[in-house]
């Protein structure tokens, strides 16, 4: 059931479109990630949801209520800012109580709800701590408790993990996911990190230059990217210019430079110039002799059980290939065979 609707949301700064006719829906209790590089309009979108920016067009609807023109204080959205924006002059209790006091909650009820909110983020008993003496992770949890305490309709998170160091990040991500699921709150968050988006969200919206490129589950985005940008932004990928010579119900023939290779799977599209986007794991190594696509390993990085090979298949053309660690040494000549999964063909104009 749809709970939050963004309909044709548009924001211009001077003459450029920061967000251009963005439409998205989130079901009740759903978690949506806005994923994109910097300048993609994801933060502007979040700020329009929070009411900090007024859209130039489109609307925001929550639970059937149009909140587009409402001030932040009137829309009952909880926001966790990138740098947390905790009130430095208040202690933990003061920060968490703030929103409740604005709702007119007083006395024992107030203390009770502050306590509950702190327990929720695992900060029970920290009421009188000054917020500027806390670690980044703790500050973030105070910010979460502060946003959740008034029981908002939607939770907004701006780059929730960008300020944490890598070891803390992994753990915080798990905790955050568990917390959001437990509270069951409809959540929208912004990130430039694909791993964060995939790990936390049910649905990921990939934005570029203010436009929605694709929205879907992490699996959908990875397996069926709608265009070369999404394919390249989500996961590791190599993009090559190639020519589709013929396609059929169970395979296609593609020319890369001199080599003509067979790509398994159903590919129904007209012949012509294409972008060929492949994942490292879509290739299998084969003996160089007799292979139609051959190359030389020019770089090799071991990650453990597997290694990433950079294979030079022509002048200025390289492919990234994942292979068992000891499959090939640097300088070796290898043959490459394409698999069915993770190989994407997109028409190329001109």
């Amino acid at each position: 059931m749809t709970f939050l609707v963004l309909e044709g949301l548009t924001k211009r700064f001077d003459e450029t479109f920061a967000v251009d006719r963005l439409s998205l829906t989130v079901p009740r209790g759903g978690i949506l990630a806005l994923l994109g590089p910097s300048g993609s309009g994801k933060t502007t979108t979040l700020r329009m949801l929070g009411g900090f920016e007024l859209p130039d067009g489109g609307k925001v609807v929550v639970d059937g209520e149009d909140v587009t023109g409402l001030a932040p204080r009137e829309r009952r959205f909880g926001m966790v800012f990138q740098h947390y924006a905790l009130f430095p002059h208040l202690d933990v209790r003061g920060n968490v109580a703030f929103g409740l006091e604005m709702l007119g909650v007083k006395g024992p009820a107030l203390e009770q709800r502050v306590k509950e909110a702190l327990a929720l983020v695992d900060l029970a008993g920290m009421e009188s701590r000054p917020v500027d003496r806390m670690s980044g992770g703790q500050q973030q949890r105070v910010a979460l408790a502060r946003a959740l305490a008034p029981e908002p309709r939607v939770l907004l998170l701006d780059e929730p993990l960008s300020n944490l160091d890598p070891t803390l990040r992994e753990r915080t991500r798990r905790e955050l996911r568990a917390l959001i699921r437990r509270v069951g709150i409809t959540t929208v968050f912004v990130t430039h990190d694909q791993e964060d988006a995939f790990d936390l969200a049910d649905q990921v919206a990939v934005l570029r230059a203010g436009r929605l490129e694709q929205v879907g589950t992490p699996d959908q985005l990875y397996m069926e990217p709608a265009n070369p940008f999404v394919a390249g932004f989500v996961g590791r990928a190599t993009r090559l210019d190639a020519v589709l010579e013929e396609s059929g119900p169970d395979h296609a023939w593609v020319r890369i430079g001199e080599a003509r290779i067979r790509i398994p799977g159903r590919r129904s599209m007209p012949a012509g110039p294409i972008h060929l986007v492949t994942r490292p794991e879509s290739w299998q190594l084969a003996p160089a002799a007799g292979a139609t696509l051959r190359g030389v390993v020019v770089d090799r990085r071991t990650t453990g059980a597997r290694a990433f090979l950079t294979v030079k298949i022509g002048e200025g053309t390289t492919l990234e290939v994942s292979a068992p660690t000891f499959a090939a040494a640097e300088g070796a000549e290898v043959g490459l065979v394409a698999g069915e999964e993770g190989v994407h063909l997109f028409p190329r104009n001109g």
Partner: protein
Amino acid sequence: MASRRAWSWGAAFLLGALLWLVAYPIILSGFEGFTGPEGATLAYAREFFARPNEWQALWGSLWISVATVIVSALVGVPLAFLFGRTEFPGRKILGALVGLPVALPPLVGVLAFLFLYGESGFAAHFVKWITRSETAPWRLQGAGAILLVHAYSMYVYFYLLVRAALERMDGAALEAAASLGASRWQVFRRVTLPMLRPSLLGAALLTFTTSLASFSAPYIFGGGFRVMTTQVLATRLNGDTQVAMVETIALTLIALVALGLMGAVGDGDARGGSKGTAPVRHLATGKGRLFSMIGGWTLAVLLLLPHATLLLLSFVPVGTWTTEVLPPAYTVSNYVELVGSAERLRPLVNSLWMATLATVASLVIAVWAGHLVVRRQVGVRKWIETLLVAPWAVPGTVFALALATAFSVHQPWALRVILVGSLWILPLAYLIRNLPVASRPILAGFRQLDPSLEEAAAGLGAARGTILRRVTLPLLAPALAAAGALAFVTALGDFVTSVLLYTYDTRPLSLEILSSLRSGDVGVASVYGVLLMAASATVFLVGSRTGDTAR
């Protein structure tokens, strides 16, 4: 690099020199207030408390200072919001101009106010012309006049500190409050105001101590209104030296209490904004923008009128302006005469060499102190720092009297020599008065300087002198420029210490302004005023620019 030692000969020497120059004279004058012909006595203190005049002066100093704080806040805080939170055409340049009065030497401000709002000033002439009246509509005298001048020069503390705090403030915190359901008024009362608290308190105390120490305004406009600073001078001129000393002690104690409070508040300042601050956006709606623009321009014009007055009057020939709204005749002869006549040029030359000497010396001491306090972290660093800022808390009148006491007898065994009446007493007084303004930016500069830069230079084989010359000083250049400029202007325009310590041969600009004024030579007084004004404006604008780039 340099080894951390609790003690060193350098530190001992600097500490000794500061004790001798800053603390010793004050302590000596303290003794004098409690020493009679027959040894220790409380007679003078009793006399002080028995005189109703003293109570009046004490009360006058206190209430005028409190009133100054209130009026300055009422002017400065709204201005800070206007220039810190809104955007309108001309905001940048006006925002800088609005800060100008702080760099204006107090006597020059007083002078400008006299010509603008005094009973024979422009405003009075204008009102007389409108009402066709023969008599002046008001007299610029007493508490009201002092308050007006104080507010004019001291609102800047509120303006600058609050504006800086507003610009540092985490904009996201305000958005967070709005998102949590706070109305604009609630955001202001519950978030903005508490976050401004350290700046407001700091500005209040700075205004309070400055007002307490203010001498020029009560001296010229006071009339029958008594404050401690002028009272000290009057008592001293009456020959009641010991009672004057008791007065200086009383004034110093009030000032020190205020400084202590300022220190306590300053500690709280450290927890100002959170990290990763997003700047507060400037509101730019049609009506508000127009309102801000009109308000900003009106205020700026009002605040710059005194400067314009001085400039205009510097072109008025002697004795030509009497009852007209605007002076009828203009000439550059006042300026020409200044350059042409050795007698006229003398005060300018005096002020220049004395201010230069005092500035250079205070910079040397400040850099040396910065090295010892910040880099070497000598054990006595707290003492050195306290002595460096102490002259700030001690009103100028008190300091001048203390120096006059300490250096008027020849007792080498007590480290006392006769300097009063010599060429050197004024530069020395300026130097000591300059220590706070010179050392604050330089110590701050040292603290921002990454010590590994100096260590890198040492690692590359540079000797200590080379490191200082090639690395430390160039990196400190903005701080040195700001400190030097401020110290120079302060010394150049000094009135309060000069009036007590000058000799005819070393008479500085401010004294010449006063004597020109007394002989009715408005044009010449204005020329000197304009020179000081130009110097201070240059320094202020340069200083605020280097401050911007340093940020």
